[in-house]
């Protein structure tokens, strides 16, 4: 009997030592804590919170960007306790459909939300009237160019039309055949579909019409894909280029133009080790088909969400407010180039007087949501578009056939 009592006492001591006195650990998930350019800021956000809240410590659990949505859905559906997460704005619909997000207006003061964010920013995080996402950084996927290379190639004006763009690409190609004039993404669906959609819009085409009908095989879309393929045929773009590749190649000073998000200058700094990269990178409006057209860009951004599996919604909400707060938002902007959305930071002279940010805001004026993003099956639609555009680029299908097949596959995907 004494032996049993001793065993039970030891077990109790063990269990109590594991639970009593240990701080509650909450989880913040995402991908920015995995990337060299943004990791220090994520660590700072965590450190500043954890220093002030010993009873509710946050820990980072991250994955590469391309795996984050999948991990969030699988882990949430599997009942894993995740508290808050960073998401790409294009994932909000899928997560809302999975019903794993907390309506933030139920855990945050409505006045605080309305007092700190522009209404349009808040709307970007709403689905069916619920505030499922808290805007963290919003801008556009825009185009950037290499002023140094363009100058060497004799290109004096930033190309504003497709014709001028083609002339600039030709000049870069003539400067050095090793240069990739335009490092368009031609590899991963996560980037290629979105970048191609911006060109579709430039040619007056789209994936869906206003009534939701699939129109990706319209005459304008075929014209756009035919033009895009001609860039490959003329050696202006290359196959097998991901956004990651484009950034790496740009850092090697062998790329004239490419598409990226607002923080690309921060990434260039990290990749090159240069303090000042102004001479090597500058934002530009996407060239238009004819003078007077609106330059196109796709809205891009990150949001913060709270998951229903959270064990402490009060601290989770307070943590989200901490992360988007003015001081950290400004720091995030200075250190990593992430444009803030919280009003106090947006109005701060650090942002207002920043030349890069202001140029990027001119691109964002024309920003619109990607057409696949309103669907829970956005990843599937992006994969279809990417595969069919790739088929046309490689010549295994004509542009018309590729887009007809894309239309048929998209219709099938959204029908079921």
């Amino acid at each position, binding site marked *: 009997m004494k032996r049993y009592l001793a065993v039970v006492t030891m077990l109790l001591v063990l269990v109590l030592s594991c639970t009593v006195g240990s701080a509650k650990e909450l989880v913040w998930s995402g991908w920015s804590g995995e990337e060299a350019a943004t990791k220090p800021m994520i660590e700072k956000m965590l450190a500043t919170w954890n220093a002030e809240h010993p009873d509710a410590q946050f820990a980072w659990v991250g994955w590469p960007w391309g795996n984050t949505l999948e991990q969030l859905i699988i882990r949430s559906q599997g009942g894993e306790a995740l508290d808050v997460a960073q998401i790409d704005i294009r994932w909000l619909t899928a997560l809302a459909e999975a019903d794993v997000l907390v309506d933030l207006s139920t855990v945050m003061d409505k006045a605080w939300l309305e007092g700190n964010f522009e209404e349009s920013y808040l709307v970007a995080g709403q689905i069916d009237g619920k505030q499922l996402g808290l805007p963290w950084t919003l801008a556009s996927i825009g185009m950037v160019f290499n002023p140094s290379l363009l100058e060497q190639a004799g290109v004096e004006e930033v190309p504003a039309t497709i014709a001028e763009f083609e002339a600039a690409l030709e000049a870069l190609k003539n400067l050095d055949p090793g240069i990739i004039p335009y490092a368009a993404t031609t590899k991963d669906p996560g980037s290629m579909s979105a970048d191609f959609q911006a060109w579709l819009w430039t040619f007056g085409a789209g994936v869906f019409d206003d009534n939701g009908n699939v129109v990706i095989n319209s005459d304008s879309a075929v014209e756009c894909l035919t033009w895009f393929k001609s860039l490959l045929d003329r050696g202006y773009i290359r196959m*097998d*280029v991901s956004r990651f590749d484009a950034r790496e190649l740009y850092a090697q000073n062998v790329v004239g133009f490419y598409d990226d998000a607002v923080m690309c200058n921060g990434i260039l700094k990290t990749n090159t080790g240069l303090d000042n990269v102004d001479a090597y990178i500058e934002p530009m409006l996407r060239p238009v088909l004819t003078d007077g057209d609106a330059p196109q860009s796709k809205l891009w951004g990150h949001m913060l969400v709270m998951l229903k599996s959270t064990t402490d919604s009060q601290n989770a909400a307070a943590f989200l407010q901490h992360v988007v707060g003015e001081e950290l938002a400004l720091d995030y902007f200075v250190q990593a180039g992430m444009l803030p959305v919280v009003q106090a930071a947006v109005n701060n002279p650090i942002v207002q007087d920043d030349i890069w940010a202001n140029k990027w805001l001119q691109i964002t004026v024309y920003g619109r949501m990607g057409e696949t993003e309103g669907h829970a099956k956005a990843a599937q639609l992006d994969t279809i578009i990417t*595969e069919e555009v790739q*088929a046309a680029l490689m010549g*295994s299908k004509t542009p018309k056939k590729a887009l007809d097949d894309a239309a048929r*596959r998209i219709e099938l995907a959204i029908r079921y």
Partner: protein
Amino acid sequence: MKRKVHSGRKLTESQFGFLLALPALAVFGAIILYPLLNSFAMGFTNQSLLRPGRQYVGLLNFERIFLDPNILQVFVNTFVFVACTTAFSFSMGFIWAMVLNQGLRGSELLRGITLVNWIIPGTAIGFLWMWIFNGQYGVLNALLRGLGLIQENITWLGRPGSAMAAVVIARAWQTLPWYMAFLLAGLQAVPYEQVEAARIDGASNFGVFTRIVLPNMKFIIFLILILGVIGNLQHFDIIWVMTQGGPAQATTTLAVEVYRRAFQNWELGVAAAIGVLWVLLISIFAFFYIRNLERDS
């Protein structure tokens, strides 16, 4: 001291054997049989990662699979990948096993080094070969340019044919030691007296190989080819890391398609339906494998 005697009926030998096998059967049922049956059942439902619960939908998932204009391409890709990888790694493994079987100095060290490929995780192998075949800054392009064989970089992973060849080479590189190890064991089991007798009778190297070595190794060759085909039919990681099934689905095999349907499209039902077709395909090879094992025993 008196021993306690049980008065109950004695267990028969088979009952006792069943009792001994029960824990293993329970584990088999829980981690293999139940998931397999559940996957089969899931193939006839609309289960999704985006919503709880599932409803029976009959053959709708199979109808959707066959309505997809590109599904035939997936089956063709799977066949090409499996056939090329198995044939390539088997032939290279066999050649290498014969070299190591010559008993040359250092062959034991070489055998150990060869096995390193088999130890490295598939994901790491995928990244290694992706770097070699990278169209912008890959080692292969640098080498070919250095030798003056090409003027411009080739986007190996950006063209259907070369992308498939690249994943086949990477996978064959990974599995070569596995074939080598089995075939070397088989070669070492070939009766030396038969080889010696054939040589005395004037048989050539080719004659010894076709008349003595191959007949003696028929069983092991058949077994490793069947196991190799099954392993390659299931293979996923190297392809996913190197090409994600692209470009334009050129390297999308059944394994990649199942992953996409489940974790990109969130359609567990459709993914399971493809899995059912996939299992049926593997079963053909499994049947021959088991039949051969039984025949041998």
